[in-house]
């Protein structure tokens, strides 16, 4: 029990710390933090807000999972950003140009997104395996290159010829490619349905991704080898884990998952890839992965926390409070949480070694007796 408390200390203290920083920022500009946070809390408690929160959390969560897969073996996929944008472009384009039996149509869109994401991350993987190029650098470069590729394709080949020239977009998804919303869930649970905002059906896929991630990492041999490679590449190699293949597979899986991030918007409110497609989900996904310590449930909580902050921040403008304070909170919480984990970890490690050593001593004495 003491250990549980110790371990939850890190995220909780990080959140508290970020609240304090945000409060100071607010007080410095002469606003009352209590009023502000109170307003946020009240505002977030409507079905509409909950739906919005979840909609925001879904792509963040998937993005976090994509990053976390890499983290498990010490690979940094900073390229989720480029991978999901590129994947969403292709998925939106393919999805908008075909009409199929609905489940098949959706499957095709998913497949395209996954394959494109994999392709883009695969380049980074291949560069690392064959040329030893560090994936952090190559994925940063690939992000920028990806933006250019998107611009080129969207402008020249992928834009909807019937669409507005003001905001270039791929053709909208035909009905067979659309996912139903989940608003009935609120009714089924006895709450009022959200107004104006749909709880996007794509949320289901986030859960699928989470389950997939959990099973993959903690229940399969592949996941075991993945974690082993992350903890000790040398030992994993001696144990018959081919590091190159592992790097490649991990990058591919990470990129495949990353490919799904943008579908939250494609299947959600946009119904196509548009020129002003949501950005920065890749980087915020890293933050969520850190917050949730790469754990499937932890990251879900982290994503929901970010969703909550983003949604409830909206009310601040109506309270004449700069809602940007929330972005500060997000930055601080990420930094604070990694520091807190580091500190708590060291503490726990020491405790653990000591208690194991004690247990060992007891075992020895027991054997001697």
């Amino acid at each position, binding site marked *: 029990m003491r250990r549980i408390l110790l371990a939850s200390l890190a995220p909780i203290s990080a959140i508290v710390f970020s609240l304090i920083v945000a409060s100071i920022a607010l007080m410095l500009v002469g606003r009352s933090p209590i009023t502000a946070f109170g307003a946020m809390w009240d505002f977030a*408690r409507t079905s509409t807000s909950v739906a919005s929160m979840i909609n925001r959390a879904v792509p963040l969560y998937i993005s976090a999972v994509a990053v976390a897969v890499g983290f498990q073996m010490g690979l940094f996929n900073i390229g989720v950003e480029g991978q999901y944008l590129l994947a969403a472009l292709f998925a939106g384009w393919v999805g908008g140009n075909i009409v199929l039996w609905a489940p098949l149509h959706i499957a095709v869109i998913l497949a395209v997104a996954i394959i494109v994401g994999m392709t883009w991350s695969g380049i980074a993987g291949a560069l690392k395996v064959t040329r030893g190029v560090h994936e952090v650098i190559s994925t940063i470069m690939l992000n920028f290159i990806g933006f250019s590729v998107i611009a080129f394709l969207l*402008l020249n080949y992928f834009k909807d010829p019937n669409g507005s020239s003001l905001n270039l977009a791929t053709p909208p998804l035909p009905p067979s490619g659309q996912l139903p919303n989940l608003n009935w869930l609120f009714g089924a649970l006895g709450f009022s349905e959200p107004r104006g905002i749909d709880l996007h059906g794509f949320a289901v896929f986030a859960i699928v991704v989470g389950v997939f991630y959990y099973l993959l990492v903690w229940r399969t041999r592949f996941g075991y080898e993945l974690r082993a490679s992350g903890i000790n590449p040398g030992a994993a190699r001696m144990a018959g884990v081919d590091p190159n293949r592992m790097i490649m597979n991990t990058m591919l899986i990470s990129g495949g998952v990353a490919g799904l991030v943008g579908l939250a918007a494609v299947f959600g409110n946009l119904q196509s890839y548009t*020129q*002003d497609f949501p950005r920065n989900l890749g980087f915020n996904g890293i933050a969520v992965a850190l917050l949730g310590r790469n754990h499937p449930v932890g990251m879900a909580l982290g994503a929901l926390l970010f969703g909550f902050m983003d949604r409830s921040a909206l009310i601040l403008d*109506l309270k004449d409070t700069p809602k940007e304070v929330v972005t500060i909170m997000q930055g601080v919480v990420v930094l604070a949480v990694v520091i807190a984990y580091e500190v708590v970890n060291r503490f726990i490690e020491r405790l653990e070694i000591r208690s194991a050593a004690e247990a060992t001593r007891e075992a020895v004495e027991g054997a001697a007796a």
Partner: protein
Amino acid sequence: MRTRFMRKGVYVALMLAFALVAAACGGGTNETTTSTAATGGTETTTTTTAAPGASTTTTTEPAGMPGEGVKVGMAYDIGGRGDKSFNDSAAAGLDRAKEEFGIEVQELEPTAGGENREENLRLLAEGGFDPIFAIGFAFAEGVDRVAQDFPDTTFAIVDSVVEQPNVLSLVFAEHEGSALVGAAAALKSQTGTIGFIGGVNIGLINKFEAGYRFGAEYVKPDIEILSTYLTEPPDFSGFNDPAKGKEAALAMFEQGADVVYHAAGGSGTGLFQAAKEFTEQGGSKVWGIGVDSDQYNTVDPELRDYVMTSMLKRVDVAVYTTIKNFVEEVPQDPITVFDVKADGVGYSTSGGFVDDIVPQLEELKQKIIDGMVTVPDTLE
């Protein structure tokens, strides 16, 4: 930390915490539901009046003004107030209406990425604001949806057409205004070369370039026109990169252009700085042309001498007129095109730099108004 059971423990603890939170949420939601039923409309438990004293932009003028009781909401696009561009222009119209009619206003700005545009509209609608302005074409889909959910609220969208009974579409003929400044550029050019700087290579900005080219070539068929876009979508930094704007402008000046027009939002400041720098460093006198608002009035005073004219896009007029009509209960057309004819676009004469060519410009203007000349709104 590293052992499994401990990790689990952490998450169990956190899950418990969140479960409590969720329970609290649930309670709140249920209460809201009942209150929704009672008030028969808005669901949100918070309104702008919930925190007295916390609000400074929401002000109510003394009684007796015609607009008393009218609550106008305005959702800006990225950049918001102070962008020296169309958001500012819209704000100016709003300020004027507030002054004259004593309306209550609420302004919202989107996040840096602009993901919450629709939610801002919805917040305003739920807060009982009517009419609600959406500044920018990016709001189109959001307005379309929110308008259906709030059929009794009037929405107005700038720069896009949304076909809903309760939506007023306020669109501008930027190409017509650009044609006028294009003509001005060509007429004033000594070198026979002029330039255009676009922020981001997108359709909206192409429209400016198309009009500009047309106007210039209309008055001087052999004019040479240089054109540069600072970035390609999805990289929208071209609207926010004055450094690149300045370099692009310098290049044009060095290549012989002496008048350059920009449609590059915040990067445009760089144009006027480049003009000043180039002129002062012994080059001949060169000019910049502003966009959207009368930039003679918005740039730093020392740059004024380089703002030859500005293509005016009277978002302020559109906003003001729409509010005025609303307050006075004058019926409005679903689509209002603010073109040269309606004086929704035009050119500015501040500084008096174009006074000598006003007759020619007015002549072109009249031809456009009369339909004798049709300005293209796309390149090619």
